[in-house]
Protein backbone atom coordinates (compact mmCIF):
# COMPACT_ATOMS: atom_id res chain seq x y z
CA UNK A 1 0.00 0.00 0.00
CA UNK A 2 0.92 3.62 -0.07
CA UNK A 3 2.09 3.57 3.50
CA UNK A 4 5.56 2.15 3.32
CA UNK A 5 7.14 4.86 5.38
CA UNK A 6 7.70 3.44 8.83
CA UNK A 7 8.76 6.51 10.68
CA UNK A 8 5.96 8.76 11.74
CA UNK A 9 5.78 12.39 10.90
CA UNK A 10 6.86 14.31 13.99
CA UNK A 11 4.10 16.37 15.49
CA UNK A 12 5.78 19.67 14.92
CA UNK A 13 6.03 19.04 11.21
CA UNK A 14 2.74 17.32 10.76
CA UNK A 15 0.74 18.26 7.67
CA UNK A 16 -2.20 20.49 8.47
CA UNK A 17 -5.21 18.34 9.02
CA UNK A 18 -7.89 17.99 6.46
CA UNK A 19 -10.31 20.83 6.81
CA UNK A 20 -8.69 22.63 9.69
CA UNK A 21 -6.80 24.99 7.42
CA UNK A 22 -10.03 26.59 6.29
CA UNK A 23 -12.38 26.99 9.24
CA UNK A 24 -15.92 25.90 8.57
CA UNK A 25 -17.46 29.28 9.31
CA UNK A 26 -15.89 30.68 6.15
CA UNK A 27 -18.45 28.73 4.19
CA UNK A 28 -21.58 30.69 3.45
CA UNK A 29 -23.85 27.67 3.19
CA UNK A 30 -23.36 24.14 4.45
CA UNK A 31 -21.43 22.33 1.83
CA UNK A 32 -22.96 18.97 2.66
CA UNK A 33 -26.65 19.36 3.47
CA UNK A 34 -27.06 15.63 4.10
CA UNK A 35 -24.19 15.47 6.56
CA UNK A 36 -25.40 18.65 8.19
CA UNK A 37 -28.84 17.14 8.70
CA UNK A 38 -27.50 13.88 10.07
CA UNK A 39 -25.28 15.71 12.55
CA UNK A 40 -28.12 17.97 13.56
CA UNK A 41 -30.44 15.04 14.24
CA UNK A 42 -27.78 13.14 16.21
CA UNK A 43 -26.87 16.23 18.25
CA UNK A 44 -30.47 16.89 19.14
CA UNK A 45 -30.99 13.26 20.16
CA UNK A 46 -27.92 13.41 22.37
CA UNK A 47 -29.05 16.55 24.13
CA UNK A 48 -32.78 15.84 24.50
CA UNK A 49 -32.41 13.74 27.65
CA UNK A 50 -30.98 16.81 29.38
CA UNK A 51 -34.13 18.70 28.50
CA UNK A 52 -36.18 15.99 30.17
CA UNK A 53 -33.93 16.29 33.23
CA UNK A 54 -34.41 20.06 33.37
CA UNK A 55 -38.16 19.60 33.12
CA UNK A 56 -38.36 17.03 35.90
CA UNK A 57 -36.21 19.22 38.11
CA UNK A 58 -38.88 21.89 37.84
CA UNK A 59 -41.88 19.75 38.71
CA UNK A 60 -43.31 20.12 42.18
CA UNK A 61 -42.68 17.37 44.72
CA UNK A 62 -46.25 16.10 44.58
CA UNK A 63 -46.37 16.13 40.79
CA UNK A 64 -43.03 14.54 39.86
CA UNK A 65 -44.83 11.80 38.00
CA UNK A 66 -47.29 13.85 36.01
CA UNK A 67 -47.55 12.74 32.41
CA UNK A 68 -47.06 16.02 30.56
CA UNK A 69 -44.28 17.49 28.41
CA UNK A 70 -44.09 20.55 30.60
CA UNK A 71 -44.70 20.81 34.35
CA UNK A 72 -48.13 22.08 35.34
CA UNK A 73 -46.32 24.54 37.58
CA UNK A 74 -42.67 25.54 37.31
CA UNK A 75 -41.14 25.14 40.75
CA UNK A 76 -38.04 27.30 40.45
CA UNK A 77 -37.74 27.14 44.22
CA UNK A 78 -36.62 23.52 43.80
CA UNK A 79 -33.16 24.82 42.98
CA UNK A 80 -33.02 26.64 46.25
CA UNK A 81 -33.82 23.37 47.99
CA UNK A 82 -31.21 21.58 45.87
CA UNK A 83 -28.46 23.72 47.33
CA UNK A 84 -29.83 23.95 50.85
CA UNK A 85 -31.22 20.50 51.64
CA UNK A 86 -27.67 19.18 51.51
CA UNK A 87 -24.53 21.23 52.11
CA UNK A 88 -24.24 21.52 48.34
CA UNK A 89 -21.51 24.14 48.14
CA UNK A 90 -19.36 22.38 50.70
CA UNK A 91 -19.65 19.11 48.77
CA UNK A 92 -18.93 20.98 45.52
CA UNK A 93 -15.83 22.56 47.02
CA UNK A 94 -14.67 19.16 48.31
CA UNK A 95 -15.19 17.70 44.84
CA UNK A 96 -13.24 20.49 43.18
CA UNK A 97 -10.37 20.22 45.65
CA UNK A 98 -10.19 16.44 45.49
CA UNK A 99 -10.58 16.22 41.70
CA UNK A 100 -8.06 18.99 41.04
CA UNK A 101 -5.58 17.58 43.54
CA UNK A 102 -5.75 14.14 42.02
CA UNK A 103 -5.75 15.44 38.45
CA UNK A 104 -2.73 17.66 39.02
CA UNK A 105 -0.69 14.92 40.63
CA UNK A 106 -1.68 12.22 38.21
CA UNK A 107 -1.10 14.43 35.16
CA UNK A 108 2.48 15.13 36.20
CA UNK A 109 3.23 11.70 37.54
CA UNK A 110 1.78 9.97 34.47
CA UNK A 111 3.93 12.20 32.28
CA UNK A 112 7.05 11.18 34.21
CA UNK A 113 6.18 7.49 34.02
CA UNK A 114 5.09 7.75 30.38
CA UNK A 115 8.39 9.37 29.54
CA UNK A 116 10.24 6.50 31.17
CA UNK A 117 8.29 3.96 29.16
CA UNK A 118 8.75 5.89 25.93
CA UNK A 119 12.35 7.03 25.97
CA UNK A 120 14.35 4.77 28.25
CA UNK A 121 15.41 1.18 28.01
CA UNK A 122 15.93 -1.24 30.84
CA UNK A 123 15.51 -4.93 31.57
CA UNK A 124 11.98 -5.76 32.60
CA UNK A 125 10.41 -2.93 30.63
CA UNK A 126 8.07 -5.10 28.60
CA UNK A 127 6.99 -6.96 31.67
CA UNK A 128 6.16 -3.71 33.44
CA UNK A 129 4.31 -2.43 30.38
CA UNK A 130 2.25 -5.62 30.39
CA UNK A 131 1.51 -4.99 34.06
CA UNK A 132 0.42 -1.44 33.24
CA UNK A 133 -2.02 -2.68 30.63
CA UNK A 134 -3.39 -5.42 32.86
CA UNK A 135 -4.06 -3.05 35.75
CA UNK A 136 -6.55 -1.37 33.41
CA UNK A 137 -8.50 -4.62 33.46
CA UNK A 138 -8.89 -4.89 37.24
CA UNK A 139 -12.46 -4.08 38.26
CA UNK A 140 -12.64 -1.48 41.02
CA UNK A 141 -14.67 -3.55 43.46
CA UNK A 142 -11.97 -6.23 43.68
CA UNK A 143 -9.89 -3.81 45.65
CA UNK A 144 -12.55 -2.14 47.78
CA UNK A 145 -12.25 -3.97 51.07
CA UNK A 146 -8.46 -4.56 50.97
CA UNK A 147 -7.92 -0.91 50.04
CA UNK A 148 -9.98 0.15 53.01
CA UNK A 149 -8.00 -2.15 55.30
CA UNK A 150 -4.77 -0.72 53.92
CA UNK A 151 -5.73 2.90 54.47
CA UNK A 152 -7.35 2.16 57.83
CA UNK A 153 -4.09 0.59 58.95
CA UNK A 154 -2.27 3.86 58.33
CA UNK A 155 -5.08 6.01 59.71
CA UNK A 156 -5.82 7.56 56.31
CA UNK A 157 -9.55 6.84 56.22
CA UNK A 158 -11.52 10.06 56.27
CA UNK A 159 -8.62 12.04 54.76
CA UNK A 160 -7.67 13.05 51.21
CA UNK A 161 -4.36 11.18 51.43
CA UNK A 162 -5.62 8.17 49.44
CA UNK A 163 -6.20 10.48 46.46
CA UNK A 164 -2.76 11.99 46.88
CA UNK A 165 -1.27 8.49 46.81
CA UNK A 166 -3.40 7.38 43.87
CA UNK A 167 -2.50 10.58 42.06
CA UNK A 168 1.21 10.14 42.66
CA UNK A 169 1.06 6.61 41.32
CA UNK A 170 -0.30 7.87 37.99
CA UNK A 171 -3.22 6.59 35.95
CA UNK A 172 -2.63 3.69 33.51
CA UNK A 173 -4.67 5.28 30.73
CA UNK A 174 -2.81 8.60 30.99
CA UNK A 175 0.56 6.86 31.22
CA UNK A 176 -0.34 5.00 28.05
CA UNK A 177 -1.24 8.24 26.23
CA UNK A 178 2.02 9.89 27.30
CA UNK A 179 4.03 6.89 26.24
CA UNK A 180 2.46 7.04 22.79
CA UNK A 181 3.08 10.74 22.55
CA UNK A 182 6.69 10.75 23.73
CA UNK A 183 7.49 7.80 21.48
CA UNK A 184 6.66 9.88 18.43
CA UNK A 185 9.71 12.12 18.68
CA UNK A 186 12.98 11.37 16.91
CA UNK A 187 15.96 10.34 18.97
CA UNK A 188 17.91 13.40 17.86
CA UNK A 189 15.82 15.52 20.19
CA UNK A 190 17.49 13.99 23.23
CA UNK A 191 20.85 13.42 21.68
CA UNK A 192 21.35 17.12 21.08
CA UNK A 193 20.51 17.82 24.70
CA UNK A 194 22.81 15.08 25.94
CA UNK A 195 25.68 16.67 24.05
CA UNK A 196 24.81 19.87 25.85
CA UNK A 197 25.29 17.93 29.05
CA UNK A 198 21.72 17.97 30.20
CA UNK A 199 20.59 15.24 32.58
CA UNK A 200 17.53 13.07 32.11
CA UNK A 201 15.41 15.14 34.41
CA UNK A 202 16.35 18.38 32.68
CA UNK A 203 15.66 16.84 29.27
CA UNK A 204 12.24 15.78 30.48
CA UNK A 205 11.36 19.05 32.13
CA UNK A 206 12.81 21.43 29.57
CA UNK A 207 12.13 19.62 26.31
CA UNK A 208 9.42 16.99 26.63
CA UNK A 209 7.07 18.48 29.18
CA UNK A 210 6.60 21.78 27.29
CA UNK A 211 5.95 19.85 24.08
CA UNK A 212 3.19 17.87 25.72
CA UNK A 213 1.04 20.78 26.80
CA UNK A 214 -2.15 19.68 24.96
CA UNK A 215 -1.77 16.17 26.34
CA UNK A 216 -1.34 17.59 29.85
CA UNK A 217 -4.73 19.22 29.39
CA UNK A 218 -6.25 16.01 28.08
CA UNK A 219 -4.87 13.98 30.97
CA UNK A 220 -5.95 16.59 33.47
CA UNK A 221 -9.52 16.70 32.16
CA UNK A 222 -9.77 12.91 32.06
CA UNK A 223 -8.42 12.57 35.60
CA UNK A 224 -10.59 15.38 36.90
CA UNK A 225 -13.69 13.72 35.43
CA UNK A 226 -12.72 10.36 36.89
CA UNK A 227 -12.68 11.65 40.46
CA UNK A 228 -15.64 13.96 39.91
CA UNK A 229 -17.71 11.03 38.67
CA UNK A 230 -16.50 8.46 41.18
CA UNK A 231 -19.06 7.48 43.76
CA UNK A 232 -17.52 4.35 45.20
CA UNK A 233 -14.19 5.52 46.64
CA UNK A 234 -15.46 8.63 48.48
CA UNK A 235 -18.41 6.63 49.76
CA UNK A 236 -15.99 4.10 51.20
CA UNK A 237 -13.31 6.42 52.54
CA UNK A 238 -14.76 9.82 53.41
CA UNK A 239 -17.17 11.15 56.03
CA UNK A 240 -20.26 13.29 55.66
CA UNK A 241 -18.14 16.36 56.42
CA UNK A 242 -15.58 15.96 53.69
CA UNK A 243 -17.26 13.80 51.09
CA UNK A 244 -17.84 14.73 47.46
CA UNK A 245 -20.75 15.96 45.40
CA UNK A 246 -21.16 12.57 43.70
CA UNK A 247 -22.01 11.04 47.08
CA UNK A 248 -24.00 14.07 48.19
CA UNK A 249 -26.17 14.18 45.08
CA UNK A 250 -26.42 10.40 44.86
CA UNK A 251 -27.71 10.04 48.41
CA UNK A 252 -28.71 13.44 49.62
CA UNK A 253 -32.13 14.31 48.30
CA UNK A 254 -34.38 12.36 50.60
CA UNK A 255 -37.07 13.15 53.09
CA UNK A 256 -36.29 12.44 56.73
CA UNK A 257 -37.57 8.90 56.43
CA UNK A 258 -35.06 8.20 53.69
CA UNK A 259 -37.40 8.25 50.70
CA UNK A 260 -36.04 10.02 47.62
CA UNK A 261 -37.16 13.33 46.15
CA UNK A 262 -36.87 12.75 42.38
CA UNK A 263 -37.27 16.39 41.34
CA UNK A 264 -34.46 17.54 43.62
CA UNK A 265 -32.30 14.61 42.53
CA UNK A 266 -32.80 15.75 38.92
CA UNK A 267 -31.89 19.34 39.81
CA UNK A 268 -28.89 18.21 41.83
CA UNK A 269 -27.71 15.95 39.02
CA UNK A 270 -27.94 18.85 36.59
CA UNK A 271 -25.89 21.19 38.79
CA UNK A 272 -23.47 18.33 39.41
CA UNK A 273 -22.86 17.88 35.67
CA UNK A 274 -22.39 21.57 34.90
CA UNK A 275 -18.79 21.96 36.17
CA UNK A 276 -17.41 19.06 34.12
CA UNK A 277 -19.18 20.40 31.03
CA UNK A 278 -17.69 23.85 31.62
CA UNK A 279 -14.25 22.34 32.17
CA UNK A 280 -14.57 20.45 28.92
CA UNK A 281 -15.75 23.51 26.98
CA UNK A 282 -12.88 25.58 28.36
CA UNK A 283 -10.29 22.93 27.62
CA UNK A 284 -11.88 21.64 24.44
CA UNK A 285 -9.26 22.74 21.89
CA UNK A 286 -6.25 21.45 23.80
CA UNK A 287 -8.20 18.40 24.90
CA UNK A 288 -8.83 17.28 21.32
CA UNK A 289 -5.29 18.22 20.30
CA UNK A 290 -3.92 16.11 23.14
CA UNK A 291 -5.53 13.03 21.67
CA UNK A 292 -4.39 14.03 18.19
CA UNK A 293 -0.80 14.42 19.27
CA UNK A 294 -0.62 11.17 21.14
CA UNK A 295 -1.87 9.52 17.97
CA UNK A 296 -2.55 6.51 20.18
CA UNK A 297 -0.39 4.36 18.01
CA UNK A 298 1.08 1.27 19.54
Amino acid at each position, binding site marked *: MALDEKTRVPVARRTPAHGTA*RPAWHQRRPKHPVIFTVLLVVSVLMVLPFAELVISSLRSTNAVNEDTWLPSAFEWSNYKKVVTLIPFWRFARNSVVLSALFALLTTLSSAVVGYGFARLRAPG*KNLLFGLLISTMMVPQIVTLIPTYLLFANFGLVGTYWPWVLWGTAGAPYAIFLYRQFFSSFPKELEEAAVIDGAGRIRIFVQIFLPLSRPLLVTAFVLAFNTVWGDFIAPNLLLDQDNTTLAVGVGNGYVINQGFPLPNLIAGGALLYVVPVVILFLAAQRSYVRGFANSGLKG
Partner: protein
Amino acid sequence: MRLQRVGTAGPAKRRRYGSSKGEALAFYGFLSPWIIGTAALTLFPVGYALYLSFTAWDGVSVFKPWVGLANYREVLTSSDTLSSLSKTLLLVAIIVPTTIVGSLVLAVLLNERVRGRTFFRTLIYIPAIVPPVASALIWKVVFDQNSGAANRVGAMFGVDAVNWLTGNRAFVVLVVVLLWGVGAGIIINLAALQTVPMEQLEAVKLDGGNALTAFRHVTLPVISPVLLFQTVLVTITTLQTFVPALLLSPISTGGGDVYTNIPNANRVYMVDVYSQFFAYSRYGYGSAMLTVFFLVIVVLTVLIFKLVGRSVFYAVDPTASGKG
Protein backbone atom coordinates in the same frame (compact mmCIF):
# COMPACT_ATOMS: atom_id res chain seq x y z
CA MET B 1 13.64 -6.71 25.83
CA ARG B 2 17.29 -7.38 25.86
CA LEU B 3 17.73 -9.09 29.14
CA GLN B 4 21.09 -10.49 28.09
CA ARG B 5 22.45 -7.02 28.23
CA VAL B 6 22.07 -6.55 31.94
CA GLY B 7 25.40 -5.73 33.46
CA THR B 8 27.36 -6.72 30.39
CA ALA B 9 26.76 -3.71 28.25
CA GLY B 10 29.93 -1.70 28.33
CA PRO B 11 30.11 2.01 27.91
CA ALA B 12 31.51 1.41 24.43
CA LYS B 13 28.26 0.05 23.19
CA ARG B 14 26.04 2.83 24.44
CA ARG B 15 28.22 5.81 24.19
CA ARG B 16 25.59 8.21 23.04
CA TYR B 17 23.38 8.00 26.12
CA GLY B 18 25.90 7.00 28.70
CA SER B 19 25.89 3.47 30.09
CA SER B 20 22.83 1.29 29.69
CA LYS B 21 23.10 0.66 33.41
CA GLY B 22 22.64 4.36 33.93
CA GLU B 23 19.74 4.31 31.53
CA ALA B 24 18.15 1.41 33.36
CA LEU B 25 18.55 3.30 36.60
CA ALA B 26 16.96 6.36 35.07
CA PHE B 27 14.15 4.17 33.72
CA TYR B 28 13.38 2.79 37.15
CA GLY B 29 13.75 6.23 38.62
CA PHE B 30 11.15 7.65 36.29
CA LEU B 31 8.87 4.69 36.88
CA SER B 32 9.28 4.59 40.65
CA PRO B 33 6.10 6.53 41.55
CA TRP B 34 4.05 4.16 39.48
CA ILE B 35 5.90 0.99 40.56
CA ILE B 36 5.61 1.77 44.26
CA GLY B 37 2.06 3.04 43.91
CA THR B 38 0.89 0.05 41.92
CA ALA B 39 2.52 -2.42 44.27
CA ALA B 40 0.84 -0.89 47.31
CA LEU B 41 -2.45 0.34 45.91
CA THR B 42 -3.24 -2.25 43.25
CA LEU B 43 -1.16 -5.39 43.65
CA PHE B 44 -1.63 -5.66 47.40
CA PRO B 45 -5.44 -5.35 47.24
CA VAL B 46 -5.57 -7.73 44.26
CA GLY B 47 -3.39 -10.23 46.10
CA TYR B 48 -5.57 -9.93 49.16
CA ALA B 49 -8.68 -10.51 47.08
CA LEU B 50 -6.99 -13.53 45.55
CA TYR B 51 -6.37 -14.89 49.03
CA LEU B 52 -10.01 -14.24 49.95
CA SER B 53 -11.13 -16.22 46.90
CA PHE B 54 -9.86 -19.37 48.64
CA THR B 55 -11.85 -18.64 51.79
CA ALA B 56 -15.51 -18.51 52.76
CA TRP B 57 -15.23 -15.14 54.46
CA ASP B 58 -18.57 -13.51 55.31
CA GLY B 59 -17.18 -10.00 55.37
CA VAL B 60 -17.56 -9.40 59.09
CA SER B 61 -16.08 -12.28 61.05
CA VAL B 62 -12.43 -12.23 62.01
CA PHE B 63 -12.02 -15.82 60.98
CA LYS B 64 -11.76 -16.58 57.27
CA PRO B 65 -12.32 -20.32 56.75
CA TRP B 66 -10.01 -21.76 54.09
CA VAL B 67 -12.03 -23.67 51.49
CA GLY B 68 -9.43 -24.34 48.82
CA LEU B 69 -10.81 -24.45 45.32
CA ALA B 70 -14.46 -24.86 46.39
CA ASN B 71 -15.40 -21.31 45.36
CA TYR B 72 -13.84 -21.75 41.94
CA ARG B 73 -15.65 -25.04 41.44
CA GLU B 74 -18.92 -23.31 42.26
CA VAL B 75 -18.22 -20.35 39.97
CA LEU B 76 -17.51 -22.65 37.05
CA THR B 77 -20.55 -24.85 37.63
CA SER B 78 -23.14 -22.32 38.80
CA SER B 79 -25.94 -21.62 36.36
CA ASP B 80 -26.09 -18.05 37.67
CA THR B 81 -22.53 -17.39 36.56
CA LEU B 82 -23.24 -18.79 33.14
CA SER B 83 -26.37 -16.70 32.77
CA SER B 84 -24.81 -13.43 33.92
CA LEU B 85 -21.70 -14.06 31.86
CA SER B 86 -23.74 -14.70 28.72
CA LYS B 87 -25.72 -11.50 29.31
CA THR B 88 -22.44 -9.62 29.66
CA LEU B 89 -21.05 -11.11 26.46
CA LEU B 90 -24.27 -10.26 24.63
CA LEU B 91 -23.86 -6.69 25.84
CA VAL B 92 -20.29 -6.64 24.54
CA ALA B 93 -21.40 -8.11 21.22
CA ILE B 94 -23.91 -5.29 20.82
CA ILE B 95 -22.03 -2.35 22.32
CA VAL B 96 -18.52 -2.85 20.92
CA PRO B 97 -19.29 -3.00 17.18
CA THR B 98 -22.00 -0.35 17.44
CA THR B 99 -19.76 2.04 19.35
CA ILE B 100 -16.73 1.50 17.15
CA VAL B 101 -18.60 1.84 13.85
CA GLY B 102 -20.88 4.59 15.15
CA SER B 103 -18.07 6.71 16.53
CA LEU B 104 -16.05 6.25 13.34
CA VAL B 105 -18.93 7.26 11.07
CA LEU B 106 -19.76 10.28 13.21
CA ALA B 107 -16.10 11.29 13.41
CA VAL B 108 -15.79 11.10 9.62
CA LEU B 109 -18.90 13.26 9.24
CA LEU B 110 -17.63 15.73 11.82
CA ASN B 111 -14.32 15.91 9.97
CA GLU B 112 -16.09 17.23 6.88
CA ARG B 113 -16.36 20.94 6.24
CA VAL B 114 -19.85 21.37 7.61
CA ARG B 115 -21.23 24.53 9.12
CA GLY B 116 -21.38 24.41 12.91
CA ARG B 117 -19.32 21.25 13.24
CA THR B 118 -17.55 22.46 16.40
CA PHE B 119 -20.95 23.02 17.89
CA PHE B 120 -22.16 19.58 16.82
CA ARG B 121 -18.97 17.98 18.11
CA THR B 122 -19.49 19.57 21.50
CA LEU B 123 -23.12 18.51 21.75
CA ILE B 124 -22.35 14.95 20.71
CA TYR B 125 -19.44 14.72 23.12
CA ILE B 126 -21.12 16.14 26.23
CA PRO B 127 -23.00 12.93 27.19
CA ALA B 128 -19.63 11.17 27.35
CA ILE B 129 -18.51 13.35 30.24
CA VAL B 130 -21.72 12.95 32.21
CA PRO B 131 -20.84 10.88 35.29
CA PRO B 132 -22.51 7.45 35.33
CA VAL B 133 -24.52 8.31 38.44
CA ALA B 134 -26.17 11.18 36.59
CA SER B 135 -26.63 9.43 33.26
CA ALA B 136 -28.47 6.46 34.77
CA LEU B 137 -30.74 8.91 36.51
CA ILE B 138 -31.46 10.88 33.35
CA TRP B 139 -32.49 7.78 31.42
CA LYS B 140 -34.62 6.52 34.26
CA VAL B 141 -36.63 9.72 33.98
CA VAL B 142 -36.91 9.38 30.19
CA PHE B 143 -38.03 5.75 30.30
CA ASP B 144 -40.47 5.97 33.18
CA GLN B 145 -43.64 4.12 32.26
CA ASN B 146 -46.25 6.62 33.33
CA SER B 147 -44.49 9.94 32.97
CA GLY B 148 -41.44 9.35 30.77
CA ALA B 149 -40.78 10.97 27.42
CA ALA B 150 -40.25 7.60 25.70
CA ASN B 151 -43.83 6.53 26.24
CA ARG B 152 -45.15 10.01 25.44
CA VAL B 153 -43.43 9.80 22.06
CA GLY B 154 -44.91 6.33 21.65
CA ALA B 155 -48.38 7.68 22.43
CA MET B 156 -48.00 10.22 19.61
CA PHE B 157 -47.80 7.25 17.25
CA GLY B 158 -50.61 5.42 18.99
CA VAL B 159 -48.35 2.94 20.74
CA ASP B 160 -49.45 1.83 24.20
CA ALA B 161 -47.21 2.65 27.11
CA VAL B 162 -44.87 -0.07 28.29
CA ASN B 163 -42.64 -0.47 31.32
CA TRP B 164 -39.12 0.01 30.01
CA LEU B 165 -37.32 -0.60 33.26
CA THR B 166 -38.40 -4.18 33.87
CA GLY B 167 -38.12 -7.48 32.06
CA ASN B 168 -36.12 -7.71 28.87
CA ARG B 169 -36.82 -4.08 27.93
CA ALA B 170 -34.55 -3.01 30.79
CA PHE B 171 -31.70 -4.47 28.76
CA VAL B 172 -32.62 -2.20 25.84
CA VAL B 173 -32.45 0.80 28.16
CA LEU B 174 -29.05 -0.34 29.42
CA VAL B 175 -27.82 -0.51 25.83
CA VAL B 176 -29.14 3.00 25.16
CA VAL B 177 -27.39 4.37 28.26
CA LEU B 178 -24.08 2.83 27.20
CA LEU B 179 -24.41 4.01 23.59
CA TRP B 180 -25.11 7.53 24.76
CA GLY B 181 -21.43 7.82 25.66
CA VAL B 182 -20.34 7.21 22.06
CA GLY B 183 -18.75 10.68 22.02
CA ALA B 184 -15.64 9.49 23.87
CA GLY B 185 -14.65 7.44 20.84
CA ILE B 186 -15.54 10.24 18.42
CA ILE B 187 -12.98 12.59 19.94
CA ILE B 188 -10.27 9.97 19.69
CA ASN B 189 -11.23 9.16 16.10
CA LEU B 190 -11.33 12.83 15.16
CA ALA B 191 -7.88 13.24 16.56
CA ALA B 192 -6.70 10.24 14.58
CA LEU B 193 -8.33 11.48 11.37
CA GLN B 194 -6.30 14.66 11.62
CA THR B 195 -3.10 12.66 11.36
CA VAL B 196 -4.09 11.27 7.95
CA PRO B 197 -1.73 12.84 5.41
CA MET B 198 -3.62 15.02 2.93
CA GLU B 199 -1.17 14.37 0.07
CA GLN B 200 -1.92 10.69 0.14
CA LEU B 201 -5.66 11.24 0.08
CA GLU B 202 -5.21 13.53 -2.90
CA ALA B 203 -2.89 11.05 -4.57
CA VAL B 204 -5.65 8.46 -4.49
CA LYS B 205 -8.05 10.94 -6.02
CA LEU B 206 -5.54 11.76 -8.75
CA ASP B 207 -5.33 8.05 -9.49
CA GLY B 208 -9.07 8.10 -10.12
CA GLY B 209 -10.24 6.72 -6.78
CA ASN B 210 -13.30 8.14 -5.03
CA ALA B 211 -13.67 9.17 -1.40
CA LEU B 212 -14.52 5.64 -0.36
CA THR B 213 -11.35 4.20 -1.93
CA ALA B 214 -9.30 6.90 -0.25
CA PHE B 215 -10.94 6.06 3.04
CA ARG B 216 -10.27 2.37 2.65
CA HIS B 217 -6.72 2.60 1.39
CA VAL B 218 -5.37 5.63 3.22
CA THR B 219 -7.53 6.65 6.17
CA LEU B 220 -8.40 3.24 7.56
CA PRO B 221 -4.81 1.92 7.66
CA VAL B 222 -3.56 5.11 9.30
CA ILE B 223 -6.18 5.12 12.03
CA SER B 224 -6.31 1.33 12.48
CA PRO B 225 -4.18 1.32 15.67
CA VAL B 226 -6.57 3.81 17.19
CA LEU B 227 -9.51 1.61 16.30
CA LEU B 228 -7.80 -1.40 17.82
CA PHE B 229 -7.03 0.54 20.97
CA GLN B 230 -10.65 1.61 21.23
CA THR B 231 -11.98 -1.86 20.59
CA VAL B 232 -9.91 -3.17 23.49
CA LEU B 233 -10.88 -0.29 25.76
CA VAL B 234 -14.60 -0.44 24.98
CA THR B 235 -14.57 -4.22 25.43
CA ILE B 236 -12.95 -3.92 28.85
CA THR B 237 -15.29 -1.19 30.05
CA THR B 238 -18.39 -2.90 28.67
CA LEU B 239 -17.47 -6.15 30.36
CA GLN B 240 -17.24 -4.23 33.61
CA THR B 241 -20.62 -2.52 33.19
CA PHE B 242 -21.99 -2.07 36.64
CA VAL B 243 -23.05 1.37 37.84
CA PRO B 244 -25.66 1.98 35.08
CA ALA B 245 -27.19 -1.48 35.61
CA LEU B 246 -27.32 -0.89 39.34
CA LEU B 247 -28.73 2.61 39.21
CA LEU B 248 -31.29 1.95 36.48
CA SER B 249 -33.05 -0.42 38.80
CA PRO B 250 -36.21 0.91 40.39
CA ILE B 251 -35.95 2.38 43.84
CA SER B 252 -36.73 -0.20 46.44
CA THR B 253 -39.78 0.39 48.53
CA GLY B 254 -39.79 -2.93 50.32
CA GLY B 255 -36.95 -2.14 52.68
CA GLY B 256 -34.53 -4.04 50.51
CA ASP B 257 -31.42 -2.71 48.87
CA VAL B 258 -30.88 -1.50 45.33
CA TYR B 259 -29.73 -4.84 44.00
CA THR B 260 -32.96 -6.49 45.15
CA ASN B 261 -34.82 -4.78 42.34
CA ILE B 262 -32.41 -5.11 39.44
CA PRO B 263 -34.35 -6.77 36.59
CA ASN B 264 -33.01 -10.20 35.73
CA ALA B 265 -32.17 -9.03 32.20
CA ASN B 266 -29.69 -6.54 33.64
CA ARG B 267 -28.02 -8.92 36.06
CA VAL B 268 -24.74 -8.75 34.20
CA TYR B 269 -21.61 -10.28 35.65
CA MET B 270 -20.49 -7.35 37.81
CA VAL B 271 -23.99 -7.00 39.23
CA ASP B 272 -23.89 -10.69 40.10
CA VAL B 273 -20.53 -10.20 41.82
CA TYR B 274 -21.77 -7.15 43.65
CA SER B 275 -24.81 -8.93 45.03
CA GLN B 276 -22.62 -11.87 46.12
CA PHE B 277 -20.53 -9.41 48.11
CA PHE B 278 -23.08 -7.09 49.54
CA ALA B 279 -26.40 -8.92 49.50
CA TYR B 280 -25.17 -12.42 50.26
CA SER B 281 -22.04 -11.47 52.28
CA ARG B 282 -20.06 -14.05 50.30
CA TYR B 283 -16.77 -12.23 50.00
CA GLY B 284 -14.76 -15.33 49.23
CA TYR B 285 -17.08 -16.48 46.49
CA GLY B 286 -17.39 -12.99 45.03
CA SER B 287 -13.60 -12.71 44.92
CA ALA B 288 -13.36 -16.03 43.09
CA MET B 289 -15.92 -14.75 40.58
CA LEU B 290 -13.76 -11.71 40.00
CA THR B 291 -10.59 -13.75 39.50
CA VAL B 292 -12.36 -15.83 36.89
CA PHE B 293 -13.68 -12.67 35.28
CA PHE B 294 -10.25 -11.09 35.15
CA LEU B 295 -9.03 -14.13 33.23
CA VAL B 296 -12.00 -13.82 30.85
CA ILE B 297 -11.06 -10.19 30.21
CA VAL B 298 -7.42 -11.07 29.57
CA VAL B 299 -8.39 -13.87 27.18
CA LEU B 300 -10.79 -11.61 25.28
CA THR B 301 -8.19 -8.86 25.01
CA VAL B 302 -5.58 -11.26 23.69
CA LEU B 303 -8.18 -12.64 21.28
CA ILE B 304 -8.93 -9.17 19.94
CA PHE B 305 -5.24 -8.49 19.43
CA LYS B 306 -4.85 -11.82 17.66
CA LEU B 307 -7.90 -11.41 15.42
CA VAL B 308 -7.85 -7.70 14.68
CA GLY B 309 -4.26 -6.82 15.48
CA ARG B 310 -2.92 -8.41 12.31
CA SER B 311 -4.46 -5.83 10.06
CA VAL B 312 -3.13 -2.92 12.08
CA PHE B 313 -0.45 -0.57 10.91
CA TYR B 314 2.15 0.16 13.60
CA ALA B 315 4.53 3.01 13.97
CA VAL B 316 8.01 2.47 15.30
CA ASP B 317 8.98 2.71 18.93
CA PRO B 318 12.09 4.94 18.90
CA THR B 319 13.70 3.12 21.82
CA ALA B 320 13.29 -0.30 20.33
CA SER B 321 15.68 0.38 17.45
CA GLY B 322 14.45 -2.36 15.23
CA LYS B 323 13.63 -4.82 18.01
CA GLY B 324 10.39 -4.10 19.72
